[in-house]
């Protein structure tokens, strides 16, 4: 973790029972995503992925103001060259790591959920929001495009029509509309967010991990396939999950 400030971790990682809790921890800047956070998130997710005791994950943001205000723009353009930036993107493929974790991941969303905050949420499987959550995608307004997978994951979550509208216009979406659009699955009172997310994670962690992992793989990988291939995958995974009981 070159350049990390170990005394001020930007990501907190804890484990209770079979649930891993990953907390974005830069509350003074609404958990804006920077390079240190990328490295520490990478370490935390890799640990959760490899740890067989971890059967479900919760991702949340610390502080009152929000889950994540997006990328930390003060660090933009600091890479020595585009070639190096591109090399680093794939050497530390944080978004690919998210997608490779075949355990249920729950995003607990509150306050500002902006840009890469929305994108991280879309890389999780279940999104629970508190009543005060507000979502927006400001990239195109800032002359760029989403870079944490959002151009791919958001349309797969809410449809291409809605994704185009939200990203092209940078419109703010309140929690209630986010639920109508299918961006979040559940809205809870502000004070109940963490309890709801953790208790769902505990419930999922109590189930057969092989079945959960197989079901997640069938959905995630199957959506990239033609129906015939997806059905074959489902059959194969179901046989495997059954025989591992």
């Amino acid at each position, binding site marked *: 973790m070159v350049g990390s400030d170990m005394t001020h971790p930007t990501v907190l990682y804890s484990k209770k029972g079979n649930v891993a809790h990953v907390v974005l921890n830069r509350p003074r800047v609404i958990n804006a995503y920077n390079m240190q956070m990328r490295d520490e998130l990478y370490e935390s997710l890799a640990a959760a992925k490899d740890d067989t005791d971890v059967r479900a994950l919760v991702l949340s943001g610390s502080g009152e103001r929000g889950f994540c205000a997006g990328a930390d723009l003060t660090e933009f353009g600091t890479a020595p060259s585009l070639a190096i930036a591109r090399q680093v993107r794939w050497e530390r493929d944080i978004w690919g790591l998210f997608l490779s974790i075949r355990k249920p991941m729950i995003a607990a969303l509150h306050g500002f959920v902006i840009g890469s905050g929305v994108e991280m949420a879309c890389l999780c499987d279940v999104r629970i929001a508190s009543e005060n959550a507000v979502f927006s995608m400001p*990239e*195109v307004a800032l002359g760029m495009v989403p870079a944490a997978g*959002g*151009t*791919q994951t958001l349309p797969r979550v809410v449809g291409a*029509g809605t994704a*185009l509208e939200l990203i092209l216009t940078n419109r703010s979406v309140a929690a209630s509309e986010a639920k109508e659009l299918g961006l979040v699955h559940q809205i809870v009172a502000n004070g109940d967010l963490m309890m709801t997310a953790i208790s769902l994670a505990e419930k999922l962690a109590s189930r057969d991990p092989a079945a959960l992992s197989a079901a997640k793989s069938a959905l*995630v990988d199957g959506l990239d396939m033609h129906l015939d291939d997806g059905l074959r995958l489902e059959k194969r995974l179901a046989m495997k999950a059954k025989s591992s009981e």
Partner: protein
Amino acid sequence: MSSALVHISIHDHVATVTLNRHSAGNAINEAMAFALRDALTDLSQSGEVRVLLVTGEGSGFCTGTDLPNLTNPELLSDTLKNHRISDAFAALTKPVIAAINGDALDQGLELALACDIRVASATARLGLTQVEAGFMPWDGGTQRLPRLVGRGRALEMILTSRRIDAQEAMSMGLVNMVAEPDQVMNSTLKIAQTIAAHGPIAAGYLKEAVLKGMDLTLEQGLRLEADLNFILQTTSDRAEGIQSFLQRRSPDYGGK
């Protein structure tokens, strides 16, 4: 750029394309299809235009197609080719918004489906009704409708030729917004102006990433997104976007 059948006006980077055959429900005939394709070619090349808005003259959007009576069925292939316009809309790299000010039926809805954002009048009806007349959608409807609303809803709409109202279209994600009939143009213009103030290169790349990405595996899509991002980093627009944010001012994009 304007013609009798397709009116074009450009204000503040927004080009409004108006189908102008009100007496025929703005139905698309061969001459209008040619005029539309020509206009789109010009607008796609115009440095001034950043966002397109398409609407219908009068109280309707577009009720379909005026196909000639074909005595020789061998001519059908050429006739449909000449009438087809959705591909020309879908090929635009600039964002396109449909202001569905009235009924959008058959090819009219297929046109709207090829746009990026759809705003519908509360009184508009939408449908692909070709099967009712012994035909089928032929300007992209069988492909774009299921991709937008899901296979089940698309099959039901097309097989039954059912016309749905704007509220139902909204609930199934077929339109992004519903406005009162006298507010459709205002609401759509507001969206167009908002997008026109954003980075034009980024908007084009965003469309490419989302629309091409839907045909790719997730992993391939993420590759496309990343590479478009690296290319964007060479543009002055992206530097302007970040500078304006850090300096807490509005960005001024040059499209470079």
